[in-house]
């Protein structure tokens, strides 16, 4: 062994590496150590091979996987299905970040004009990436749904979004790409942009990374149209009247402007989710809880109201729910309990008192 490592220190890194519980930095250190001498290398290989010799079967289902593969690759004779299968074949295999199963599926419903309708759903706790038949890539965030006609890309390119998605649109000037989200239409040529339109958000947030998009709000209570420039971030809030179906419109002139626009220097904050990252910039715990519920498929309850206003900054990558909560716990006087899919967050009174004292004494 190298003299600059304590005995057992490398054994710990090797064990952590094999079990998958290692930081990138520690793994780098291990790699350097392995490369440093043939003895180190041989030692590592022995432990690695002992580990590999103990492999037991994991949570894999061969029958389900076989069906999944068949569904994607098998030709079907019935003509009506051909169209659908062609669509299915044009998808890349939907994938899931953070563990779990593949959840995307296709349904064929009789839509208007007897057309087929394709629905891709990314349930809570999973992110799905799909490629449409025109080459456009779509990242679908947890708890989101994308719908489009099976005739997509024949004469027009139109999709309907409920939830959040990042679009990387393949350029085709003859067929503009349209996203319908809530009561807005977002028109794009070749461009990358993020749309967040969860029903419970009661609005649409559009962030343009590059290219150009136009927002068409002509069917909203306060009709508007606007062109977006790269790095522009537009928040549209649905007018109160539009929330209650059937109620008459408020006089548009008296209603407040529904759109707020700002330039953002870093669009990563809004698109990081597609790479499995989660950037938090001064959000309240109440806002974080909504994301946590979608990302980890849990309910979040607050024991005390005051918790909702705690604010946080930071970046999460592949952390599990518990890791996220533990990190929050490190920075704020809170505690949590996870039971049957519900996270209950409470104030850690002892710690809060400590914080308050420290603050008082510091003054």
């Amino acid at each position: 062994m190298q003299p600059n490592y304590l005995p057992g220190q490398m054994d710990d890194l090797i064990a952590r590496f094999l079990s998958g519980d290692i930081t990138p930095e520690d793994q780098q250190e291990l790699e350097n150590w392995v490369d440093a001498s043939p003895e180190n290398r041989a030692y590592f290989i022995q432990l690695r091979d002992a580990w590999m010799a103990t492999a037991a079967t994991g949570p894999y289902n061969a029958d389900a996987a076989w069906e999944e593969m068949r569904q994607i690759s098998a030709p079907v004779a019935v003509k009506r299905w051909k169209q659908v299968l062609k669509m299915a074949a044009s998808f890349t295999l939907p994938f899931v970040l953070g563990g779990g199963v593949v959840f995307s599926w296709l349904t064929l419903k009789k839509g208007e004009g007897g057309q087929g309708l394709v629905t891709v759903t990314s349930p809570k706790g999973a992110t799905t990436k799909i490629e449409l038949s025109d080459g456009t890539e779509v990242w679908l965030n947890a708890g989101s749904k994308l719908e489009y006609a099976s005739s997509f890309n024949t004469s027009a390119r139109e999709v309907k979004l409920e939830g959040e998605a990042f679009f990387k649109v393949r350029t085709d000037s003859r067929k503009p790409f349209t996203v319908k989200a809530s009561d807005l239409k977002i028109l794009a040529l070749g461009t990358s942009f993020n749309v967040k339109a969860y029903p419970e958000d009661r609005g649409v947030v559009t962030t343009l990374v590059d290219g150009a998009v136009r927002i068409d709000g002509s069917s909203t209570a306060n009709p508007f149209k606007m062109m977006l420039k790269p790095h522009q971030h537009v928040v549209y809030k649905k007018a109160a009247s539009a929330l209650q179906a059937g109620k008459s419109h408020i006089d548009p002139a008296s209603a407040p402007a529904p759109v707020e626009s700002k330039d953002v220097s870093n669009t990563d904050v809004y698109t990081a989710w597609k790479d499995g990252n989660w950037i938090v910039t001064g959000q309240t715990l109440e806002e974080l809880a909504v994301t946590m519920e979608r990302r980890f498929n849990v309910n979040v309850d607050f024991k005390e109201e005051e918790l909702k206003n705690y604010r946080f900054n930071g970046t999460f990558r592949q952390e599990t729910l518990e890791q996220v909560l533990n990190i929050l716990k490190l920075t704020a006087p809170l505690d949590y309990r996870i039971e049957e899919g519900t996270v209950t967050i409470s104030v850690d009174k002892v710690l809060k008192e400590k914080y308050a004292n420290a603050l008082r004494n510091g003054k």
Partner: protein
Amino acid sequence: MNTLEASLHISQHKQQLPAFEGLFKAHYAALCTFAFDFVNRHELAEEIVQDTFLKVWERYEDLEIQVSVKAYLYRSVQNNCLNYIKQDRIRSRYGHELLQQLESRITLMNMPAAPTPAERLENAELEHMAEKAIRKLPPQCQDVFRLSRFEQLSYPEISRQLGISVNTVKTQMTRALQRLRDELLPLLK
């Protein structure tokens, strides 16, 4: 993966499909377990194994396997791990740092030993001895090892589950690994 092309092939040598299905179902789970050690993610392991099978299927007719089918599949999966994650559509899924760690992991797991990991898995005696060696571990050491190896729990999770400190988990893990190595060394050579 080019699924359209794959489906074309399926119609061409359709009569071979049952045999291929048998091969798939017989080895799928074990191959995923094998791939998991390389990539440390279940969903990625499954994708790689499925992708490997599609590739095998595409060349099924003119495939002439010199070694055993099992050894061939293991080697194909092992070789496919690094190639698979180098595709753009997979790269775009993980952040830069994570991808680097993944590549480095696969490289470390790929470092040649004689016999190769794929060949060793052919060795039924080794599997038997490995289970025996685990059973010989002291009780707490065995619990820690099993939770890590078979339940894929993290150190903090194991510490919570067993009500012991993370430091104890650490000590027991390195101890388990050392003992397993000592027991299995004659077979690993």
